[in-house]
């Protein structure tokens, strides 16, 4: 609050905007007089009724409210409620002829700044002074807290930026270490002796471990920055050439090098799941690495996938070990960031990020994670993975307005040169690109491009469910064919022309009984049947 200099050279006091709620004109005049005498330059508005108080309050800004405790139909507490509701921080001072101690305490409790007895009006200026000072302190604290929070956020951002930068910079030298180690191992720089081979294998194993740590670090910074991308795909966990089986193969040999037996149980009749295969493997890797670390030599680790009995919408994955187990108090804490077990004779402790990362990823995929364990009895980690469901993907287009005049068609776009191998990054990228291209070619209000559900030696098919009238099918097919035959797209899918076939969904039209929005499951079943036996090579 600034001060201005008056004519006499003394600083004149800053104006004080006061709203006085008082139905007794004499008391109002008394309060005004006290304020004028006290050195304030009061700009006084007086309200005698609740209505006029509310009107004045809404019209202008005030520094302080002075309110008589008992009006004919109102109390100061009602005025306080009006002030509160407006969201403004303006102190209220209660003015009263007779206030029992208890009501005084109650006023303060409710949020009044102070109270002044009418027979001691001289206290009013002091009360106002203190109220304004308190308000100033409140605002200062709020500002300081905001600044602190801002700088905390800024620090977090800088830390994540730094970690991300470091991780990227670490990748390049790692790439060279990996490159030259494999050059030596493959004998490209001359023959090597068996002992040298052993040494190089160790270098390679460690460089891979370091790469995985860098990857974890990067993932953590993305989780922290809310930038983690999850790309769910139609995934068949038991696919022998899929990510999950491949990851288990690698983990098996890692376990074997510590003389641990890793067994896996992946039934082939599990329903397909809707997860990011890479992220799922990251969860699995972290849990198995953790098991390897805490299981003594000669022990065993069992990875098992099965239907989740408690909720058929999920598959339950578990990693069980015969290790040292986890104490009750640690069972929750182990999922915290940077948690390290105090004991542990392991020479390497790792980053303390593995289980935290596993939990973050499991949650990001729509599942959850927990552990069951007793000290000395081994541990079993569980995490859930959502089962793939077609119906929710169809909901946006299977609507009354879409199907009033049009009918449902299933287009099958087959790419003979693409097998959709989950482990081949070029194929996966081509697949993503094709999906994007198709999505841009259809109308999102009426058509939906379904996720690729695996391929075979004959090629990979992407299905499009389209709501069109019979005359509209061929033009849509032509549009897709033309775009997919461009040299740029053909280059990315190995040069062979895609084929497009289409068929009407053999589904009874609406007869006014059941609305389309309730027939999505039925449509999904038809799509699945038309798409043939659900292919089982995804993931």
């Amino acid at each position, binding site marked *: 609050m600034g001060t201005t200099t008056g004519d006499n050279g003394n600083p004149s006091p800053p104006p004080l905007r006061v709203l006085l709620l008082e139905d007794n004109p004499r008391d109002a005049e008394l309060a005004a007089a006290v304020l004028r005498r006290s050195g304030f330059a009061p700009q006084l508005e007086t309200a005698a009724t609740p209505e006029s108080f509310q009107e004045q309050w809404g019209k202008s800004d005030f520094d302080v409210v002075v309110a008589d405790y008992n009006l004919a139909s109102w109390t100061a507490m009602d005025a306080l409620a009006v002030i509160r509701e407006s969201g403004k921080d303006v102190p209220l001072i209660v003015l009263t002829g007779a206030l029992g101690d208890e009501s005084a305490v109650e006023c303060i409790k409710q949020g009044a700044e102070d109270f002044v007895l009418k027979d001691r009006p001289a206290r009013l200026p002091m009360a106002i002074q203190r109220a304004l000072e308190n308000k100033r302190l409140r605002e200062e604290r709020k500002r300081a807290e905001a600044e602190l929070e801002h700088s905390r956020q800024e620090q977090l951002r800088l830390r994540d930026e730094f970690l991300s930068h470091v991780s*990227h910079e670490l990748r*390049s030298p790692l790439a*060279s270490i990996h*490159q030259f180690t494999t050059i030596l191992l493959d004998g490209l720089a001359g023959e090597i002796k068996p002992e040298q081979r052993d040494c190089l294998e160790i270098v390679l194993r460690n460089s891979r471990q370091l790469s995985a740590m860098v990857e974890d670090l990067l993932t953590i910074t993305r989780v922290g920055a809310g930038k983690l991308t999850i790309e769910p795909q139609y995934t068949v966990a038991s696919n022998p050439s899929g990510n999950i089986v491949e990851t288990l193969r690698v983990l098996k040999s890692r376990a074997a090098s510590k003389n641990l037996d890793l067994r896996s149980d992946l039934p082939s009749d599990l329903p397909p799941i809707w997860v990011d295969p890479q992220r799922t493997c990251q969860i699995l890797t972290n849990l198995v690495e953790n098991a390897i670390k805490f299981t003594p030599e000669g022990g065993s680790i069992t990875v098992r996938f099965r239907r989740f009995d408690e909720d058929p919408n999920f598959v339950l994955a578990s990693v069980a070990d015969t290790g040292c187990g986890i104490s009750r108090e640690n069972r929750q804490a182990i999922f915290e960031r940077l948690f390290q077990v105090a004991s542990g004779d392991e020479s390497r402790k790792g980053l303390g990020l593995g289980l935290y990362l596993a939990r973050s990823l499991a949650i990001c995929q729509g599942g959850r994670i927990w552990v069951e364990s007793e000290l000395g009895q081994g541990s079993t980690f569980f995490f859930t993975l959502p089962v793939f469901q077609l119906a929710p993907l169809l909901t946006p287009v299977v609507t009354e307005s879409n199907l009033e005049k049009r009918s449902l068609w299933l287009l099958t776009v087959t790419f003979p040169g693409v097998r959709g191998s989950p482990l081949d*990054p*070029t194929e996966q990228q081509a697949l993503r690109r094709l999906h994007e291209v198709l999505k841009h070619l259809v109308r999102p209000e009426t058509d939906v491009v379904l996720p690729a559900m695996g391929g075979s030696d004959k090629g990979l098919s992407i299905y499009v469910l389209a709501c069109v009238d019979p005359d509209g099918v061929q033009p849509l097919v032509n549009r897709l064919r033309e775009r997919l035959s461009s040299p740029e797209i053909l*280059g990315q899918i*190995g040069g062979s022309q895609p084929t497009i076939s289409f068929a009407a969904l053999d589904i009874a039209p609406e007869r006014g009984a059941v609305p389309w929005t309730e027939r999505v499951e039925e449509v999904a079943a038809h799509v699945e049947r038309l798409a043939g036996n659900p292919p089982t090579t995804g993931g």
Partner: protein
Amino acid sequence: MDARTILIVDDDKDFLRGLGMRLKSDGYRVVGAADGVTATSVALKEKPDLVLLDLGLPGGGGFMVLERMKALLPLMTTPVIVVSARDPAANSERALQAGALAFLQKPVENEVLLTAIRKALGESP
């Protein structure tokens, strides 16, 4: 048939050399460039059958090289595979849209790289 020529563009000399050794042993002829400007001129002179392209490069980044190649008639159809330490989530889609065949992240396993190269060159895997 003469050996197919692969141009490796990477400012990390160690990586360039290592990858060169690896590809030569697989029967390819290898030429290299360590910056964006040289990359285009070497490409024009050598007419490689395939380009392996890093993204972070002095003298115009990899994306600029890629765009320039796709605009030059003699290089327009030359397949390009991006091999970079950068985050695929942020860069692979952009690389593919700019005309790259694939985005491989460093460190890349030799088998994965060779499969991608053979596919790009239309060789049987």
